[in-house]
């Protein structure tokens, strides 16, 4: 048998060496910041989201939690003071649909891939974590893709840039599972040459795939329930064999795992609600849900959250009835609505995307802010700890230079658990040092390459795990160098050609990392 670990260790070693060689600075920049025990943010306009706006207000943070919020708080003598005069503080943004920090996104080979888990493939070094952090995002729901009716297990993370993967998960957040309805699971817009069409190929089949899986899960649950009942009294009872595919679905039936279902059309939304009723589980959120406005009453009655885009439309048939009024219309009918990114770039300006619902549908400032703070927190079951500026909640905050509901606002700082994980001034200040360091390394590499010209060969194929050192002499221009910095990473050059391409709909960056399939819509 192949020893996977045996192969993995040299590979990891290679990656580590490469990172040290090429990203010495990003490694050091990624050190988690120190957290002073007590921080006072003062003179700020505080957008609490839950109880209005406080002008010239202060927030006292103790041990990562919000200890006090008010008009004037005296600084305890050991406090680090952040003077936010003229600035706006809002709760850290929560992105209810993200694919950052993931080494792969779609296990699209089967129609039910509930056995795979995003928690196992978290990549804490994904630069998109930092970029989204710089957009005020503090937490994100990391979802599996939408290639199958029942996708993989999902989790909520905090964007603790610099911390190892084990420190990213949002403690205590209820895990989820991705479902998907419509064109993506039926593979309407994708075909792989040489591969036969997969079941389901219609919305009818999508329903039956889900019903089939839950029928199995019910039986499986019963088998275990029977066993557990009997095990109390009988000795030497052999437990049933574990089924890793059905276990997460049993958790759904038991209410221990949230269902986040990708969907577009009104009919498929109602379909899943019917199936959920039949099997006795709840759908926690509908994702995208671009026709949610057509069945808003049904969504409200079912108590399901809706997480949608601000204004994407017309990229496929099921997005042709998408309207930018969706969030406002559903809100007005009593649905808890959030605006998500589904894309690392879109996540850098979710505050602006939320503001669009004021123009399209007339939401108030607070209602708009809730779309990216308190509402996604409620949807993800983390509202006791995040989503508003209230005493006792985690000190996850985004500080802007002006009202975040404006296209002119720029994030100045993002705090998570009371630590300043992003600081715009610090980022700018460190740039020249980084450039210097990068240049020195490039020079060093060039020199070392010049020393061994005899190794300069046409670089046909480099076996995995071997350093392609002989490539270096050919790379003369610095920009060429930067493209090749890490062969294990996707090359963004390819996407550069493609005009404005918000990830998901075209080529999700996270996806391209692991899968050769280009246009998978999540």
């Amino acid at each position, binding site marked *: 048998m192949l020893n996977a670990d045996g192969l993995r260790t040299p590979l990891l070693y290679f990656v580590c060496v490469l990172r040290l060689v090429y990203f010495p600075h990003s490694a050091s920049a990624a050190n988690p910041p120190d957290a002073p025990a007590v921080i006072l943010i003062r003179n700020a306009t505080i957008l609490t989201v839950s109880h209005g706006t406080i002008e010239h207000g202060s927030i006292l943070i103790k041990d990562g939690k919000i200890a006090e919020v008010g008009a004037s708080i005296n600084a305890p003598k050991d406090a680090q003071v952040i003077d936010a005069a003229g600035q706006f503080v809002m709760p850290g943004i929560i992105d209810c649909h993200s694919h950052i920090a993931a080494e792969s996104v779609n296990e699209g080979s089967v129609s039910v891939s509930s056995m795979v888990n995003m928690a196992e493939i978290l990549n804490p070094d994904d630069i998109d974590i930092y970029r989204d952090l*710089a957009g005020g995002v503090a937490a994100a729901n990391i979802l599996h893709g939408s290639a199958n009716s029942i996708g993989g297990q999902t989790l909520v993370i905090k964007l603790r840039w610099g911390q190892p993967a084990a420190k990213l998960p949002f403690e205590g957040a209820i895990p989820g599972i991705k479902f998907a309805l419509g064109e993506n699971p039926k593979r309407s817009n994708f075909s792989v040459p040489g591969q036969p069409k997969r079941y389901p190929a219609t919305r009818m089949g999508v329903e039956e795939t889900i019903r089939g899986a839950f029928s199995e899960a019910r039986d499986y649950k019963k088998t275990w329930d029977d066993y557990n009942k009997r095990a109390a009294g009988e000795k030497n009872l052999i437990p049933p064999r574990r089924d890793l595919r059905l276990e997460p679905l049993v958790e759904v039936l038991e209410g221990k795992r949230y269902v986040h279902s990708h969907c577009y059309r009104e009919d498929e939304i109602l379909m899943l609600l019917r199936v959920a009723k039949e099997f006795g589980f709840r759908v926690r959120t509908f994702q995208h849900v671009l026709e949610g406005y057509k069945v808003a009453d049904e969504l409200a009655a079912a108590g399901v959250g809706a997480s949608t885009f601000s204004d*994407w439309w*017309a990229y496929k048939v099921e997005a042709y009835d998408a309207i930018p009024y969706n969030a406002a219309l559903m809100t007005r009918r009593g649905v808890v609505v959030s605006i998500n990114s589904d894309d690392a770039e879109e996540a850098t300006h979710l505050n602006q995307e939320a503001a669009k619902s004021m*123009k399209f549908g007339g939401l108030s400032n607070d209602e708009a802010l809730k779309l990216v703070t308190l509402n996604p927190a409620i949807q993800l079951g983390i509202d006791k700890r995040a989503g508003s500026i209230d005493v006792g909640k985690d000190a996850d905050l985004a500080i802007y230079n002006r009202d975040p509901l404006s296209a002119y606002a720029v994030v100045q700082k993002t705090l998570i658990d009371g630590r300043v994980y992003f600081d715009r001034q610090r980022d700018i200040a460190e740039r020249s040092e980084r450039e210097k360091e990068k240049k020195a390394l490039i020079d060093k590499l060039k020199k070392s390459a010049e020393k061994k010209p005899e190794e300069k060969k046409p670089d046909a194929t480099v076996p995995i795990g071997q350093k392609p050192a002989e490539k270096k002499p050919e790379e003369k221009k610095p*920009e060429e160098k930067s493209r090749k910095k890490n062969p294990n990473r996707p090359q963004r050059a390819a996407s550069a050609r493609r005009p404005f391409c918000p990830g998901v709909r075209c080529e999700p*960056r996270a996806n391209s990392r692991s899968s050769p399939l280009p246009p998978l819509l999540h």
Partner: protein
Amino acid sequence: MSRAQIRDRLLCLLYFINFLYLLNPANAVAQIQPPTTYALTHAKIFTLAGSTIEDGTLIIRDGKIAAVGAGLDIPSGAQVIDAKGLQVYPGLFDSITQMGLREIGAVSATVDSAESGGYNPDVVAATAVSPSSEHIPVTRAASITEVLAVPASGGMDSFGSQGVIGGQAAAIHLSGWTIDEMLIKKSAAMVLNWPEIETQTFDFATFSRKEKPYSEAKQEYEKQVTEITDWLERARHYAQAMEKGSAAKYDRDLKLEALVPVVRGELPLLVFADRSREIRNVVEFCDKQRLRMILAGGSEAYKLKDLLRSKGVPVILRPMLTLPLDEDDPYDRLLSQPAELAAAGVKFAFASFDNSFARRLGQNAANAVAYGLPYEEALKAVTLYPARIFGLDGQIGTLEQGKLANLIVTNGDPLELTTDVKYLFIKGQLTSMDNRHLRLYEKYSKRPKAQ
């Protein structure tokens, strides 16, 4: 029956016939002649040509701006719009879209934005623009009064090849019953997708990622550049044949004929390139070939700002709502680029590059202001500058006497997310802002509460 009675009955009959005729909606529309003269009064007018007028009047007559100023006399018969508290700006110009060429990205039957084959200088976007595309009214409602419909310019369906010479881009008004009524300029630029040295490519035939050595990728790149050079060389010869001989003396070649205005320097090339190496190469190439060039994309234009300024190459910038190209680029690399280019004296405009996202044009420009671009430059980069870059500033781009009345009346800054457009004029016509999204909104707002 008296003569008067007969006359009255005849008149009645005539009215009735006319009424029946008008009942047919097509005839009714044809019958309505909208006013030709408008007066916008008490508005704050941002002319973008000189100073802003605080309490101004703008007179529109026969499609054009007849006068702009303070305290102007209102012509008799003019429809007066009291714009007190409102602001008037030139309509926005989105200079790279696939407007009317692509309806639904994933449905090829609705997509006419890129022809097959590598060299299509003779294909003309104006031919395939669908005047009844739902994108047009949606985009119009976002303050945009004119766009460039650009073939082979990518966008969301662009998984395959866009070809090298992609065809002719058309400048169009976002209003008109036919393409002829919409056209500002049928051929405003020739699209050139400049080749890249690509060591990693995606092969759609086998659905797999291919890697090749740099030397091989470079060879392929050079081969493509030679091909482009060859096309231009042949076009020059063709131009000479056209000038010197009669039509009977040479075989007509539609592709070469289409390239003649390019080699004569009459038609600019709209060149898509993002990486600094490709930008440098193509700028030098066009300089050597004495071709007019507009750069499109330009994600790394900042690295070559001196070259771009000295050669007078303007840039249509890819939306900053895109992540930086490289992992170790500063996170705001694209957001801060416009300010850097402006300071260096490089001319540029913003564009959506995708009509589904056209309504983010103003947002894009505002984001550049947030990262250091002077506000007025941002506003001009979505109005005057694109008009100037495509040689249309004699007709559009500012609010000046004699220009086409393509303008918006708003309740605030047109670049801000929450601003509403109250009135929109295209070619002097008060134009509806009704659109698919608004209609669906109104329809479903009225859905009775579900049982």
